[in-house]
């Protein structure tokens, strides 16, 4: 069985004052993470107040965009187009929800290496998703 990736009209991400930087960077092809100066840890999703130590001393940092599949489920019957919902553990140590794209979804496995790509929402907002790591990277 193969389930080729198909483009899907997904929900628009809501842009809040505290996540604007992430969406602006995404439109330039960059995935940004929030890091905390007090505890030196990355967190996801980005917040002005660190959820790990409670400090307001947080700053934006560019992510490598590389990670590993922590869990994945191909959703076959929630709308007309199947898609792969996943948790991706980034090299920086945080795990984020995302989609895995640009591949045969049926071949995806936990532990697979992936890299960030950006897919455009119906309104044109770039949203971080992941594809299987390419040989050249």
């Amino acid at each position, binding site marked *: 069985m193969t389930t080729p990736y198909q483009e899907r009209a*997904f*929900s628009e991400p809501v842009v809040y004052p505290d996540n604007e930087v992430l969406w602006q960077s995404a439109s330039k092809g960059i995935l940004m993470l929030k890091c905390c100066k007090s505890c030196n840890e990355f967190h996801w999703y980005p*917040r002005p107040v660190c959820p790990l130590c409670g400090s307001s001393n947080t700053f934006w940092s560019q992510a490598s965009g590389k990670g590993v599949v*922590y869990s994945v*489920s191909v959703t*076959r*019957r929630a709308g007309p187009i199947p898609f792969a919902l996943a*948790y991706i553990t980034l090299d920086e140590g945080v795990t984020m929800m995302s989609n895995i794209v640009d591949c045969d979804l049926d071949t995806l496995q936990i532990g697979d290496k992936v890299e960030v790509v950006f897919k455009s*929402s119906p309104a044109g907002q770039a949203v971080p998703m992941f594809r299987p790591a390419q040989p050249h990277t």
Partner: protein
Amino acid sequence: MTIRGKACIAGAYEHPTRKSPDKTVAQLHAECAQGALADAGLSLHDVDGYFCAGDAPGLGALSMADYMGLQCRHVDSTDTGGSSYLLHVSHAAQAIAAGKCNVALITLAGRPRSESSSGTQPRNWGQNVPDEPFELPYGVVTVNNYALVAARHMHDWGTTSEQLAWIKVAASHHAQHNPNAMLRDVVTVADVLASPMISDPLHRLDCCVVSDGGGALIVTRPEIAKSLKRPIVSVRGAGEALKGPRGGRVDLSYSAAAWSGKTAFEEAVLTPADIQYASIYDSFTITVLMQLEDLGFCKKGEGGRFVADGNLISGVGKLPFNTDGGGLCNNHPSNRGGMTKVIEAVRQLRNEAHPQVQVKNCGIALAQGMGGQLGSRHGSATLILERQ
């Protein structure tokens, strides 16, 4: 302070409807309240504490207390999704122990079936939800969120779809005896595996039903419970806990039931081996498996083997569960199954379950609820109940 022995469940009522397009949600709440009060032998004017959650329309407790004509001196509308009502029993016991009320009413009602709600639609949590931009674009609904937990469990422990299917099979064995259950046909493991794949690895028959309906409970102090004509069901222990992705430290290997269960067992001074009947929240088969492990009914990773071969079927296995057919077969009113978990545990302790599924001499029962979404933010509540 402990709530052990400080409060009793004196009234329990499950609305028989499974589809109610012609009734309002408020009416269903009121009918459930009437039912539970009649079951207890109490009246509306005896109620001085009211508990409800996010399914209560309007301004929640404010709207519903007025609609039903309640005069309350204690109110609590804590919302932890489908687990809220187990947590309400615990909070009601706390309020009673503190002298804040004598007769607490807890209601739940909803019409997701009439309103065409489904676990394959995005949930609407309202505006200003902080996590929404980082989840909704990825198509997360209810079923695929839970599927992420199932996929990881299979990867870590070798759990199989056949093992998960046994949970549905057991529920269907019980539902055949419940005339109100939506799905009364006994199914096999093969039936579950042959049902359409919704989100890998969860099939359609791994998912609960969508139903209208509701339920209500009356919690009161032991002196009042003893003056009534119903068997005495005492609250022996309770625990509640929340768990989320914790800033990106996602760990799907355990749920908040590991914490709420520990608290409840410690308060009850009991262990899982003492539990004769268990109501386990069953939004999906994986939900049951995770909670059984996290509550300590088996070791982590052994849930698949524990549930297989009919071990959850009353009269057959070691741990009879969800003898009303549960959410998988009976009902899941308002997409919140916690209320019905308590109701069936009360039936078992009163010796009022269907004779074909009644656990003999059932003296200690556990009710376990899981609200929100197991693969991300969820609230767990554990209740341990005892027949006096």
